[in-house]
């Protein structure tokens, strides 16, 4: 049927991502990190045993990334420290994408006063610098749960995507198949969610990745500054500890401080590369996306 042909075409188009080297590296990296933070903890046990005789050891076969200020294995902390980070980034990304896609498409489709109001609200939220707002909010609300942190980040970061979705739907809604659906008397909700949105799936996925990288930026920044008192194993908490305890000014601690920095930076980089490769394939401005 047509649906199958469509699915095959989508997969085929996704295959184009692998044509560029940044797409290949990005995809491989993202898959690697997802495996590392989800399956990794099942394989590598967390080393919680302090060993004073093995403080700040250089990398070795036994400790691939060396040991920290208490002689614990850094590699196991890296393996266990990404899950929470990825959870918050994914949840915040999904939440803001959901808000942006729903309101953006409705705004474009309904138009009129609703559209003007949505645009005014979007402009205001877009202008308020997000990171300072998050920092100030953390002064009022004790963000001790990861879900609460994700919710707040997600609920503040939809405006950019909302504009993009709105622009897309505005152009899509002039197409014949949408006019046909309207002529058939199908409801607004049905047309928006069943007819319009599937056509911009690739675009939405790209923006979901963008939302995730920016959520990761805010999240790590807040934890780094100590504004979100998360405890436990987390790459950002590792950087925060190294910073407050002055470990960064200690030459032997290079492995300890570099490991989480490299993990976060590489994860971000792979996400950005993947999204750029996807953009080349799906970018509607290039006329191939829809």
């Amino acid at each position, binding site marked *: 049927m047509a649906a199958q042909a469509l699915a095959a075409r989508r997969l085929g188009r996704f295959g184009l991502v692998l044509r560029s080297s940044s797409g290949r590296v990005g995809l491989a990296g993202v898959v690697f990190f997802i495996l590392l933070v989800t399956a990794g903890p099942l394989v590598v046990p967390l080393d919680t045993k302090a060993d004073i005789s093995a403080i700040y050891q250089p990398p070795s076969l036994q400790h691939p990334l060396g040991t920290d200020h208490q002689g614990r294995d850094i590699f196991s902390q890296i393996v266990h420290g990404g899950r929470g980070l990825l959870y918050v980034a994914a949840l915040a990304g999904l939440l803001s994408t959901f808000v942006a896609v729903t309101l953006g498409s409705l705004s474009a489709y309904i138009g009129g006063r609703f559209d003007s109001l949505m645009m005014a609200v979007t402009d205001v939220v877009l202008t*308020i610098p*997000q990171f300072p707002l998050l920092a100030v909010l953390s002064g009022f609300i004790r963000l001790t749960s990861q879900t609460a942190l994700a919710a707040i980040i997600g609920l503040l970061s939809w405006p950019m995507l909302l504009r993009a979705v709105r622009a897309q739907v505005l152009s899509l809604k002039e197409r014949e198949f949408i006019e046909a659906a309207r002529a058939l008397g199908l409801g607004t909700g049905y047309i928006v969610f069943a007819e319009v949105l599937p056509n911009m799936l690739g675009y939405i996925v790209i923006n979901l990745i963008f939302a995730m990288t920016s959520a990761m930026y805010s999240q790590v920044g807040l934890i780094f500054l100590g504004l979100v008192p998360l405890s436990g194993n987390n790459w950002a908490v590792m950087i925060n500890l190294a910073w407050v305890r002055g470990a960064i000014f200690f030459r032997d601690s*290079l492995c300890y401080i570099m490991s989480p920095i490299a993990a976060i*930076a590489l994860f971000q980089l792979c996400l950005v590369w993947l999204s*750029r490769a996807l953009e080349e394939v799906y970018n509607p401005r290039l006329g191939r996306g829809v």
Partner: protein
Amino acid sequence: MSANAPVAVEAAPAYPARWLRGAGFIAVRVLKALLTVAVVVTLTFFMIRLMPGNPIDVYIHQLIAQYGIPLAEARNLAAALFSLDLNEPLWRQYLRFLGNLTQGDLGMSFLSPGTPVSTMIGRFLPWTIFSVGTGLLLSFSLGVGLGMVLAYRRGSWFDQALSALGSVFSSVPNYLVAMLILVLFGVQWPLLPIHQMRGVLSPGMRPSLSFEFFADVLYHAALPVATYVITTVGYWMLTMKNSTLSTLEEDYVTVARARGLSDRRIVTAYVGRNASLPLFTQLTITAGFVVGGSLLIESIFVYQGIGLLLINSINQRDYPVMQGVFLLITVSVILANLLTDLVYARIDPRIRLQGSA
């Protein structure tokens, strides 16, 4: 135009006069900016009053519990610090807050008693404006220049190396780059005297029109500025490269070539100008992002700008300072927005026409 309009009108211009269109555009943008400022001012007021941990009540309770100050007196003290009259209904407090604000009165700091928030801001803000502004300006001009070069030499090793570098550095969070500079060049290979470079000025240095003063200012701002440039120049470069590549395909460039204009003239007057125009609208978004990022960068390099002031006030729960600084950061981003819009409209008339329609 309505169908039954007199025929004579058709000969007259259908649009208002040119200067009127420009004025309308400016008015719309200014109104929009004012509206946003009003929303943010209202938000910060009610955030302080209605948030779960209402800092005014917390402060009053603290005064009563710790120092045994009677309720009425404690309320007066709190009211003085926030420059509000707590005996008034909320809406009158709000109006008073607005009134005080127009006179630049943002209340007093909790922790440095007797210091108005506006004085503190006045002390910290210029450094952020200076460092962020310098960083953005350097990065924008460098990125636009390099982007054009890359577009003309696309595919060369120069293009490939620089594009890859640009994409890496614009993807890594700016505070991680700052940490890397600190860890690698400050601690591991101690090339930079990072402890001396802290702060905005060396101890004992007084503002003057001397070479020493300016050198000292630049010395202390070097690391924050370098971080801003490193993390944003890649974005400008790649955007400019793409913009130049698509401009090169435009008909008017082909025509200019056919007319036998010199390459130099084509590069500057035709390609450069038109390719860089769209980048101006993105300057604001970047400005907002860089100002937001200054919280982290200034903390890492201990640079006493507005970002560090905000972080310190949040950590110490100095609510009047938090409120004032946040308001100011937001208003400055809104102003930057407005300025970019107006400058862009001035250099690209197409926008002015669309904006007033």
